[in-house]
């Protein structure tokens, strides 16, 4: 087996050094009833060529985003990632290192995390950010739990614009924690509706902008209402490129900003691994979940970076920890950070403007299709349309015509009574020809 360096001679000699006759002598503590002779019922060792053939065969049965006119979003977005990003994250020293527990020999990872935290704080307009969480949905759930610790209150109010999967992830965790979640009914443009639901027991309100229907909202008034009632405002964003065009959560008064960072530096990967962005006000940081990287000096007074405030964390605090989280999404955070460094402010703003332009072009094309109603009043690169027929069927019919034409809202929330709503996104990867093909196919399907 090509990954196993020991030879039969090595094994025999090593058993001699240990002083046992056979390898079974090292497994004597396994209860006899659980000892298995022979191999489990699975195929045996396979060479690279054989493995490549099988996996390439499976891969070929999927329709890739890059091979067709592609308009899916709803929390995961196809963007172009510079070749440099994937090359650099495959450097051995980044790819095959562990969590930086020994800072003297992990300054590469640690400096990247410090830069990442600064980039995320800048993008979200917040004071500080952590070293990432698993993804946007778990970051949202963790943020809600954090507000319970901060406010000692037990109720969270989520707008009808929050991604239904984020709502479900939060509800799952909240149920276990004994926290009450009030999820308002799905609404294209009603983030403000959370204001009426705030009461004296409300720990936080959660709104999303752009929301799952693509609607961009100024949440300043929601922040004011929340703060007046002693509650915290969590702002969710699933499309990180929007930070290059729209007002940041921090500018609008958010106490915690969480986002899905996949759009920057990371491929679609069928939903994971992604990278959860988590940023908050500095005064809240000791209640924050996840790894934090901080600046310090070494014994010679030279600047260096370490994981810090680890007294919040499970390996120190055990059952008193702020979260059970152990890893972050390190390599995805690295990809995010490299891509963001390449873009810079100039590139990000240009990328964001380009996304918005493509979405406007898409809107112009689709609103001319008979039976299609544009629902989203203000959008970044994604909007909702009403089709007057089940969107899931339309999407299948479009796929049969070689167009991946968006995400039916019913796929996210079957019981919401919005079966005829389709979510469509357009990024910089969409061409004029793609839009024309979508328009043509949709016209046929709607006819």
């Amino acid at each position, binding site marked *: 087996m090509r*990954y*196993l360096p*020991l*030879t039969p001679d090595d*094994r025999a000699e*090593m058993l001699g050094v*240990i002083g046992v006759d056979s390898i079974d002598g090292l*497994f004597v*503590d396994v*209860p006899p009833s659980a000892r298995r002779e022979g*191999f489990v*019922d*699975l195929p*045996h060792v*396979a060479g690279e060529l054989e493995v490549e053939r099988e*996996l390439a065969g*499976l891969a070929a049965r999927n329709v890739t985003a890059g091979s067709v006119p592609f308009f899916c979003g709803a*929390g995961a977005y196809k963007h172009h990632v510079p070749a*440099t990003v994937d090359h650099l994250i495959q450097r051995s020293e*980044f790819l095959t*290192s562990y*969590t*930086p527990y020994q800072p003297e*020999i*992990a300054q590469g990872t640690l400096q990247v995390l410090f*830069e990442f935290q600064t*980039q995320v704080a*800048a*993008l979200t307009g917040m004071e*500080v950010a952590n*070293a990432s969480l*698993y993804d946007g949905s778990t970051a949202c759930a963790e943020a809600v739990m954090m507000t319970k610790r901060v406010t000692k209150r037990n109720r969270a109010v989520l707008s009808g614009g929050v991604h239904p999967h984020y709502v479900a992830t939060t509800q*799952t965790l909240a*149920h*276990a924690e004994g926290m009450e979640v009030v999820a308002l009914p799905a609404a294209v443009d009603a983030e403000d509706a959370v204001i009426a639901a705030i009461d004296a027991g409300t720990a936080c309100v959660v709104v999303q902008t752009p929301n799952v229907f693509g609607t961009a909202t*100024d949440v300043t008034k929601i922040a004011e209402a929340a703060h007046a009632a002693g509650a915290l405002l969590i702002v969710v964003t699933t499309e990180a490129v929007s930070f290059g065009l729209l*007002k940041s959560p921090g500018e609008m008064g958010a106490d915690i900003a969480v986002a899905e960072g996949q759009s920057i530096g990371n*491929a*679609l*990967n*069928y939903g*994971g691994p992604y990278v959860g962005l988590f940023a908050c006000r500095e005064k809240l940081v000791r209640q924050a979940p996840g790894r*934090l990287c*901080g600046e310090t000096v070494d*014994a010679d007074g030279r600047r260096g970076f370490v994981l810090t405030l680890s007294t919040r964390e*499970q390996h120190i605090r055990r059952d008193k920890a702020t979260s*059970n989280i*152990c890893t*972050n*999404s390190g390599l*995805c955070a690295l990809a995010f950070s490299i891509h963001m*460094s390449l*873009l*810079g402010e100039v590139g*990000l703003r*240009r990328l964001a403007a380009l996304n*918005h332009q493509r979405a406007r072009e898409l809107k112009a094309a689709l609103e001319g299709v008979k039976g299609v109603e544009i629902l989203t009043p*203000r959008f*970044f690169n994604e909007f909702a349309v009403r089709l007057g027929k089940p969107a899931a069927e339309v999407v299948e019919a479009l*796929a049969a015509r070689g167009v991946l034409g968006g995400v039916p809202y019913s796929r996210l929330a079957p019981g919401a009574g919005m079966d005829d709503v389709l979510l469509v996104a357009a990024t910089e990867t969409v061409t004029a020809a793609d839009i024309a093909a979508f328009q043509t196919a949709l016209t046929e399907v709607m006819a």
Partner: protein
Amino acid sequence: MSTTMNTVGRPTAPVATAGDIPATLTGARGLLQDEALIFELGGWNKTGVDLPEAADADEGLSGLMRDTAIGLPGLSEPEAVRHYVRLSQKNHAIDLALYPLGSCTMKHNPRLNEKMARLGGFSDIHPLQPVSTVQGALALIDRLAHWLKTLTGMPAVAMTPKAGAHGELCGLLAIKAAHEAAGQGHRKTVLCPTSAHGTNPATAAFVGYSVVEIAQTDDGRVDLTDLAAKLNDQVAAIMVTNPNTCGLFERDIVEIARLTHDAGAYFYCDGANFNAIVGRVRPGDLGVDAMHINLHKTFSTPHGGGGPGAGPVVLSAALAPFAPAPWVVHQADGFRLVEEAVDEAASAFGRMSAFHGQMGMFVRAYAYMRSHGADGLRQVAEDAVLNANYIKASLSDVMSPAFRDGPCMHEALFDDRWLEGTGVTTLDFAKAMIDEGFHPMTMYFPLVVHGAMLIEPTETESRQELDRFIHALRLLAGAAKAGEVDRFKGAPFHAPLRRLDETQAARKPKLRWRA
């Protein structure tokens, strides 16, 4: 014979110098550059990406547009490459040398797996595109699930947890849901050995359970008498790592499972150490109800400097109905997805995250498993255990094994008795290992062993690399016992940085760059 300058340059020869090595003038250390932060490298108007100009935004976004500076520097491509390559050289990595972090299973990461994960058919597909267009992806998830179930002897697996701790959360949520469904929601206690990973009690507390510790016997196993005394009708579950964090197989594990089930509780097994037994022992044969599998440990998806991981959870028949959505169903005409906790999934406890789990890690783990096969995986466990015992045997005369009698499993645990009187601590010894070219072992964990040093070599180390490691540790042990305290107290001396001031970092946290 004469030489000419033009062909050989100016020959140099080593020159002996007296006294200390002078510090460099720039902060560089030979090839290691003193690399500034991106925020100090300038480039506020620079970009390394060529994009066309877009038309000005409109469409009702007035008042919503960001009109202040964001504060993001940009780098041209050559600058970016140099920045990150320079930073990378300040990291230790499994590709450089044995990385003996106990409990972390730092094994070789095959590059085939990286190549496979980057096939467009896996990396360039959207989690919400029609299932008819991702049949190959669902087939891969289904095949990986089959391998995981077969290797563990368990009937079901929840694929979506994104890391080991996330898997623990999934397992305990399933247990909680099962108890609630059976009218046993009053059970609020979880039992954990004192040697448990920190994530175990943290997870239990996170889902609203209180944690009671189980004592350990002198030979490093769960104390059955103490366990039996603490099991009652308030206990929801026990969380036991097997092989345990002392690197030992829990000999009484079948009895532990029986006692637990007799008390109406579930047995959560922390599968972090599955590498020691994969292909040789099936947790399902031990009475386990739920166990997470760290694909980034046993099945070699790269650790990436701290994630992303993946933590699928195998489940017993009793817990399977409570598994979270979504999951893949294999039927005659292909694969479909169950995505909502309704209808056939009505008893599912909810959802762990937005989509289908760590697909990129699934591809890597499956490529790894397929490459090894049933025979190769069994050899993995045997070689991992052999390597650990070889290290233990080769160091036992100079260091003190925490549990001298009997074999260890995939990791060798030493305590600090052998350092008594030397003035050198476990931490000092570990930091001195850095100077000798090795990453330190896991230190001060498990908590039940004084000054613990937990060494996990894994199966992907050659005899030569093991001997090189053993040689280095024997030299260091000799130096400690010979009174060379200075070699340890100030260590590391030869790393990119010296010891860092973690106290200062925590006292006045500086978590971001500021102008």
